[in-house]
């Protein structure tokens, strides 16, 4: 939920301005943006190379850019990185499927029925107050440290955002649209098809996006703590062996995977809910 707002900067020209500009000007603006955005990474790279060249820190503590690049090539060629990511993504998929379906159903039911919400809502909302990471020891005692632990904790991480967002989405459908539906004498199925689902869908997709991001963050922790495989394990194990070049590669891989998943979800958000209903 914390990561929903992007860093935009007032730099972004608004759509209107952009349309008013000619194509070549728009192109030069893009290049200017790329060039300015590259300043910080290039400066970091330069400082890093310089520090390595001057032997400012021991190479075990600060491997050079070339060493990191060599490690990346090695990991890609041996397939270790891909295998680790496959394991992690497989866990995400199963856990997310379980957690988000449960969250969707629970959110929809509580959203529709004020009676059930009065009974179960307070308990669920209290549980929401406890962060997923605090559940980890309890889950470890219950499920051990096997595969069930990862699936359970991911499902838990995905469940709450899905529940809360579906709930909010279903509740926001009330009011005028339901009045129209009543005037048109819609049956329950038609009401679901034309009122509830269209108005809840944007929130549901947002919930899924938050669920995925939560799940990814939690999975890294679990894999670092207790796992014989996965990207988090690869990272923690390389750290134990003091192969910081591999650690660097895994950090980039974790960031890139997180970004890709979020980008995919944002694209899905635009595809699935191009409308926006002012509730």
């Amino acid at each position: 939920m914390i990561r929903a707002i992007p860093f935009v900067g007032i730099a972004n020209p608004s759509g209107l301005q952009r349309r008013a500009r000619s194509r070549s000007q728009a192109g030069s603006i893009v290049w200017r943006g790329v060039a300015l955005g590259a300043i910080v990474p290039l400066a970091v790279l330069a400082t890093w190379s310089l520090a390595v060249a001057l032997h400012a820190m021991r190479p075990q503590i600060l491997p050079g850019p070339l060493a990191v690049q060599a490690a990346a090539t090695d990991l890609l060629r041996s397939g270790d990185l891909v295998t680790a990511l496959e394991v992690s993504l497989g866990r995400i998929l199963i856990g997310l499927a379980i957690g988000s379906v449960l969250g969707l159903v629970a959110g929809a039911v509580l959203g529709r029925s004020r009676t059930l919400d009065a009974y179960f809502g307070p308990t669920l909302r209290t549980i929401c107050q406890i962060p997923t990471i605090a559940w980890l020891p309890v889950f470890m005692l219950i499920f051990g440290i096997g595969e069930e632990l990862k699936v359970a904790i991911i499902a838990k991480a995905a469940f709450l955002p899905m529940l809360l967002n579906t709930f909010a989405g279903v509740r926001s459908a009330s009011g005028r649209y339901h009045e129209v539906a009543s005037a048109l004498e819609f049956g329950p199925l038609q009401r679901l098809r034309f009122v509830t689902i269209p108005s809840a869908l944007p929130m549901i997709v947002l919930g899924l996006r938050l669920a995925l991001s939560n799940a990814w963050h939690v999975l890294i922790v679990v894999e670092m703590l207790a796992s014989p495989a996965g990207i988090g394990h690869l990272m923690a194990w390389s750290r134990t062996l003091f192969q910081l070049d591999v650690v660097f590669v895994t950090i980039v891989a974790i960031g890139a995977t997180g970004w890709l998943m979020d980008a995919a979800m944002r694209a899905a958000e635009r595809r699935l809910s191009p409308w926006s209903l002012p509730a």
Partner: protein
Amino acid sequence: MTRPLARRRIDARGVIVPLGLSLGWTVTSLTGHWNPHLLVPPAQLARGFIATSHNGDFWIAAGSSLLRLLTGWFAGSVAGVALGLIVGCFTLAGQIVAPSLNAVRQVALFAWIPLLTAWFGDGNTAEVILIALAAFFPAALNTEAGCRNAPIVLREVGRVLELGPRDILRRIIVPAAMPSIVSGLQIALTSAWIGTIGAEYLIDQGHGLGVFLSSARMDNRMDVVLFCMVALACIGFALSTALRLAFATRTPALALTAVDD
């Protein structure tokens, strides 16, 4: 006036589910069909809770966690708000810094731990840096968004009045961005608290609630684990409530935002 009061009254129906659950817990644990280590009998749970709350080590752990949290949160928030102001107020700074920040933000927070422990050792320094990092991003993001959304009308008023850049920042942009900055600080506190527990739990050195929790799990003490969980939820709740009250009493500047609407 009557509605908020009525809503504040507790709906008795909400109590039934927890009561039913604890009744089920009691009955199942008394029949002894389930593993008593997991489904701790209520009497033992109560004893565990009382024993832990009288345990000096627990309070030392809670105190060090709290101290660590506040240090990291303060450092991260100050840095985040400062950077957010710069990025939000100066177009060029935004263009230079925003892409890199967005890239770094994609990395899951706890993925920094291996690197931080390698550089700063398995101790307090690495933990505080991680907590600061956890607080930094929400503080920076919200400050930047608040500055960016400061009503243009107000900025123009500033220009008409020929205020200098410093006065525009101090009298117009910061007051207009204040609600967003405050909510950024609140999110930063929650995020930093999660970072504190996670860092302590993963690094598992020295004192701290996370370390206490980790050793309780090693000892297979479900009662102590549950007590810690309740305690850290309460601490988190108390901290965010305190922060909300602290800011609620002194933000008259909020009136400015009405112009934007």
